[in-house]
């Protein structure tokens, strides 16, 4: 059978598999963002705390997470409870692997986000806080009503970068056998559903990433434009 006819025949099977894998990729992507965006803010407050021990502990933690590969963190988060504590807190199967991967990703990305937030907050001129103070605002009001929008404007470009990286980083979860899109594509090299030795599905996994990152870049670019109404 000529190659192209063979590929055409395999396509429905492959795409069903890749779609399923990409769904898992998307799930991990959104869960990470949902957890890491707010957690990062909390961590950034810790790293800016006037209470020195909290500040140094937080900065040390961020340093460790940022200084080691996400892949190690995935392995440790996944295997440590079972192997060392003799307690498999993640549960079994794909759901367990997803839970472990989510936690590792959320913590890792929250640390990166926290540094971006910190830069965003500390980059706001002191005069903004002082203006709020002399107008009788409370610290919370100064943060939410004065600083937050200015911070958001400052952090959109660097956060966009991280988000694009996150899309691609989700593939690391493959190390604990999370069945994301690359895992699904690779399966057809090893042999799955009657197809083996096929590398073309792997190329298509790349297309999934490209398209999704394209959509995200477009959306984040729009957001950046929207915040152009002030300087």
């Amino acid at each position: 059978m000529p190659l192209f006819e063979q590929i055409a025949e395999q396509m429905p099977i492959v795409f069903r598999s890749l779609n399923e894998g990409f769904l898992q990729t998307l799930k991990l992507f959104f869960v990470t963002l949902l957890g890491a965006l707010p957690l990062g803010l909390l961590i950034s407050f810790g790293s800016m705390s006037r209470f020195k021990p909290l500040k140094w502990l937080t900065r040390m933690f961020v340093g460790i997470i940022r200084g080691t590969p996400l892949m190690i963190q995935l392995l440790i988060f996944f295997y440590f409870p079972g192997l060392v504590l003799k307690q498999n807190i993640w549960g079994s199967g794909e759901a367990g692997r997803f839970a472990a991967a989510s936690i590792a990703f959320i913590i890792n990305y929250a640390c990166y986000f926290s540094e971006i937030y910190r830069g965003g907050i500390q980059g706001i001129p002191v005069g903004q806080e002082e203006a709020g103070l002399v107008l009788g605002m409370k610290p919370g009001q100064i943060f939410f009503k004065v600083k937050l929008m200015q911070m958001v404007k400052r952090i959109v470009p660097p956060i966009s970068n991280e988000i694009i990286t996150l899309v691609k980083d989700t593939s690391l979860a493959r190390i604990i056998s999370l069945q994301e899109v690359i895992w699904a594509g690779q399966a057809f090299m090893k042999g799955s559903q009657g197809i083996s030795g096929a590398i073309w599905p792997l190329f298509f996994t790349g297309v999934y990433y490209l398209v999704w990152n394209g959509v995200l870049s477009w959306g984040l670019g729009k957001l950046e434009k929207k915040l152009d109404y002030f300087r």
Partner: protein
Amino acid sequence: MAFLQVENIQKRFGNTQVLKDISFTMEKGEVLSMIGSSGSGKTTLLRCLNFLEKPDAGRILLGDQLLFDGAVAQTRKAAEIRKKRLHFGLVFQNFNLFPQYTALKNVMLAKELLAREQPDYKENKKQIHQRIEEEARHLLSQMGLSEKMNHYPHQLSGGQCQRVAIARALNLQPDILCFDEPTSALDPELTGEVLKVIRELADKNTTMIIVTHEMAFARDVASKVIFMDDGVICEMGTPEEVFVHPTQERTKQFLGNYAGSL
């Protein structure tokens, strides 16, 4: 008893004693100009009055109310200070407008937030906001900014920004309005329009303390002038006394720099 009494204020940053035992008084409706070279402590004194810096020692009294006493811990607490600083308004050298809000919202914001603390806020929310907006619009038109209310700060000139900042400070009806070199960031033309607004306020008997390097303006607008040098009040008196008949060598020397413009 004087309206504002500042007694023996001291402030040090690290090893530098920036304010050494500053005392002065002023009356309601008076305009006080503070002059002196950079680093003489004028701005720090103004920031102490607005509690952006906490004096190390000394007392600040307004009317019969003790606002600050370096020796009384209670008056040093942040929550206490928040309420008391509303007696003072401050206009900054760099305006410090909130860039994400229009001119109108810049003026309204603080008052809207304060209104939430009123006991009847929930029932009369709509009317309260309406009133705040009306007042803000009125103030901005007084500043000659009727056309600019919905502009964002980056769309305004420096002089317009500073006038918005003045309206913003006035909107909280402070007992004393302070200006920290309000025209130092402006070119001569824009300086003129801001000084005009301040003069109009003086004509309406607004109590003001103005730190400035505009000597002619300081002399003309003030009823009292303080010349500061190296953290102390070197000379204090009417504009006539300080500018025309200074008694201190240092004052003469300083004013000599402005001989042409006075």
